[in-house]
């Protein structure tokens, strides 16, 4: 574990000489360890794609001491993996709910149905959260589905939109502006301020997508706005 200073009260922990996936796993494992057993003076630990951002109170804890402590915990955390949670999330691909699916499939030389099939067939892992509350960046997208972000972001992306941005896929938890390629829609509620914790997904969780029809999606939206994701045993 190496560190890179950001401000008087924050730094990034980096995990050099390993793959991006391994670095992310180390960051998530350390964040999880810190969440279970807080360290005095440490205020926040936020996993990124390959790093862990650490915010501390320099009046309470000395930076060098904290780094030494984190280095030890990082070694321990790697040997005690947390149990994995799995979620199955139904998605209606294409049509009015996935307006960019046909165009992206055309660019890749495959049918829209085939693109949806490949997206739904992959296993995804929550790498980190960001962008908006509950927005989970999922790794595991097949490389042939990578898609550049739009040059001009949409001013309005509907809540539940299933999207591809670069090498990531994600579901927009709420209606926000957004620059990703929209391929489908789900009815899952990813963020609930009254829930503990408010974000449904957390780094390390596994996610699977299950195709459903537009009719199913409409029914789910009409039935309940609180559609829970199905947790797999």
């Amino acid at each position, binding site marked *: 574990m190496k560190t*890179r*200073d*950001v*401000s*008087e*009260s*924050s730094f*990034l922990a980096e995990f050099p000489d390993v793959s*991006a996936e391994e670095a992310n796993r180390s960051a998530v494992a350390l964040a999880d360890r810190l969440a279970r057993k807080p360290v005095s003076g440490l205020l*926040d630990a*936020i*996993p*990124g*794609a*390959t*790093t*862990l*951002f650490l*915010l501390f109170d320099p*009046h309470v804890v000395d930076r060098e001491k904290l780094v030494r402590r984190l280095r030890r915990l990082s070694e321990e955390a790697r040997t005690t993996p947390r149990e994995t949670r799995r979620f199955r999330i139904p998605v209606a691909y294409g049509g009015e709910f996935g307006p960019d699916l046909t165009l992206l499939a055309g660019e890749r030389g495959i049918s829209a149905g085939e693109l949806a099939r490949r997206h739904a067939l992959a296993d995804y892992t929550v790498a*980190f*959260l*960001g*962008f*908006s*509350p*509950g927005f989970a*960046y999922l790794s595991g997208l097949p490389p042939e589905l990578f898609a550049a972000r739009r040059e001009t972001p949409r001013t309005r992306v509907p809540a539940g939109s299933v999207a591809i941005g670069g090498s990531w896929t994600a579901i927009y938890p709420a209606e926000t502006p957004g620059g990703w390629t929209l391929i489908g829609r789900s009815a899952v509620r990813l*963020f609930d*301020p*009254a829930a503990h914790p*408010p*974000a449904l997904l957390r780094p390390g969780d596994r996610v699977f997508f299950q195709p459903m029809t537009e009719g199913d999606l409409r029914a789910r939206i009409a039935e309940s706005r609180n559609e829970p994701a199905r947790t797999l045993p």
Partner: protein
Amino acid sequence: MDLFALERGNAAVGNASGAAGLEITLAGPELVLRMDTLLCVTGADLDARCNGSAVPLDEPFPAKVGDRVSFGYASAGMRAYLCVQGGLALPLPGEPVARLSKGDLVARASPPARPTTGPPARAGPSPAPGGSLVALGRELALRVLPGPQPSFFPIRALEVFFSGTYRISSDSDRRGIRLDGPRLELDRPPDIPPEGTALGSIQVPANGLPIVLGPDRPVTGGYAKIATVVASDWPLLAQALPGTSVRFRAAGAFLA
């Protein structure tokens, strides 16, 4: 935005550090009290009045049911803080914080924020009351710590950043303060694997115009960052009106 001002107000009415107050940006509301309490206004001078009489900044004052507390327009600084004994009720974390509009009720925290006991809260080196307010037309000199992505910025971009004068864009808010001025020319796109962001970090998107990240920034971001504004200079930026000129200078290296 200006936590020093909020903490001064909290201390003045006896609240614990971190109790919620009302942030009032540029122009203020008229509030009618539904209970007797102790109030304090800090931060920008928005011509605060209680039943029409001017209220001094940074001094607690008692107010009664039916009293009208009003604010005018900013004459110095950008954001005023109204602190209430006991603190205000917070929305749930992550719940969108809406602007107040006419007829809204603002509740006091339940249970009220505990009065401070023991040593005063640490807010770091605090500027003198009003010290973060910069007169209109004056230029801000902000100290920054370089990094955390220095390799994205060629020497000529660093020279432009540290010698140029920027202006705060009116397109700024609690998420980020956008700057207009000389563009930083980069050798490659400023895309990085998204990572956690700090208050005051200065990200540079492909158009080369820096954005200083504010308290409502995204928790992770994928743009390279050239530097971070030091914590004690942040309130200067939080209180600077759009159009204010800003220059950056490197703070003494805190990295040994």
